[in-house]
């Protein structure tokens, strides 16, 4: 089911896509087809951390660092207004629900996203830092 424009989704930002030394986020956070996101309408932000950390922290050195939030409507608008090499691309982005046993709020952006469009999406994100008192070590114990 395609999600309505009013919904908000978050993307887990792990250390492979976030450079804490200078605060940069990788444009490939949103790149390629089938980008995973998680719906705030199903699991509220305060509970997303534990859910996402348990699924993404599986290797030494890979940690959940932030969550990036964006609305479905603004995401669709970014695709429709994207211009590459001087040509309006009119990318028809959508977000589709895709619940998993490990995350009932899971959804995907099925369409292919290029580096340029990925950069534009990253700029539009609202970033959420790890909540106070929720250390990476704690998260690892949850796993």
């Amino acid at each position: 089911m395609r999600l309505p424009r009013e919904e908000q989704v978050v993307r887990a930002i792990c250390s492979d896509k976030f450079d804490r030394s200078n605060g940069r986020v990788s444009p490939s956070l949103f790149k390629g087809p089938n980008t995973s996101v998680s719906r705030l309408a199903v699991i509220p932000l305060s509970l997303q951390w534990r859910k996402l950390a348990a699924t993404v922290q599986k290797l030494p050195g890979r940690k959940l660092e932030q969550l990036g939030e964006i609305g479905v409507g603004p995401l669709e608008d970014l695709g429709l207004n994207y211009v590459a090499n001087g040509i309006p691309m009119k990318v028809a982005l959508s977000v589709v629900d895709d619940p998993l046993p490990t995350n009932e709020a899971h959804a995907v952006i099925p369409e292919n996203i290029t580096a340029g469009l990925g950069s534009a999406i990253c700029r539009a994100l609202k970033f959420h830092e790890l909540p106070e008192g929720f250390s990476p070590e704690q998260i690892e114990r949850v796993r």
Partner: protein
Amino acid sequence: MPALDETLETRVAIGQWLAPQTTLQWTIPHVTSWMESSVPPELPGIVYAKLGDAAWQRFNDFSRWPDGWAGPHSHAVAWGTYQNLGKFLSAARFVTGRPPPSLFVTDDGMLELSWEARDGSTINVTLTPEGADFFIEARGEEAHVQSEGLGELAERCHQATA
């Protein structure tokens, strides 16, 4: 005339790289092929010299991650991608006195460099086993080059940065 801290030069001469010898003892991760996971011996030194300590630490982490590190469709960094990162970095010139490019890894095992031009626009180069995908925001340019074109791409990125 550029300010001293903006002189274009390599951050640390590669011949002066003095990382502890223990850091060169790479642990090969659990992957399907030794060749796919092998890091060219000179590459850690090039990464350190051109991108600095933070990127070198990240490179160390990424090079240990096996196939499946970010889910069933994710891949370890391929041998050809390491080769192309080395080619690109060897030709690249970054402005000192500004944050060096950040190193990232994509879910399909490509190595990605991202930094800003003087006007704040993004430059993004994703090294693949075949060459590189690049995005130069200020020029609205998004394309692919083969391995032979990496030196020329490095120069284009330098011009776009300055």
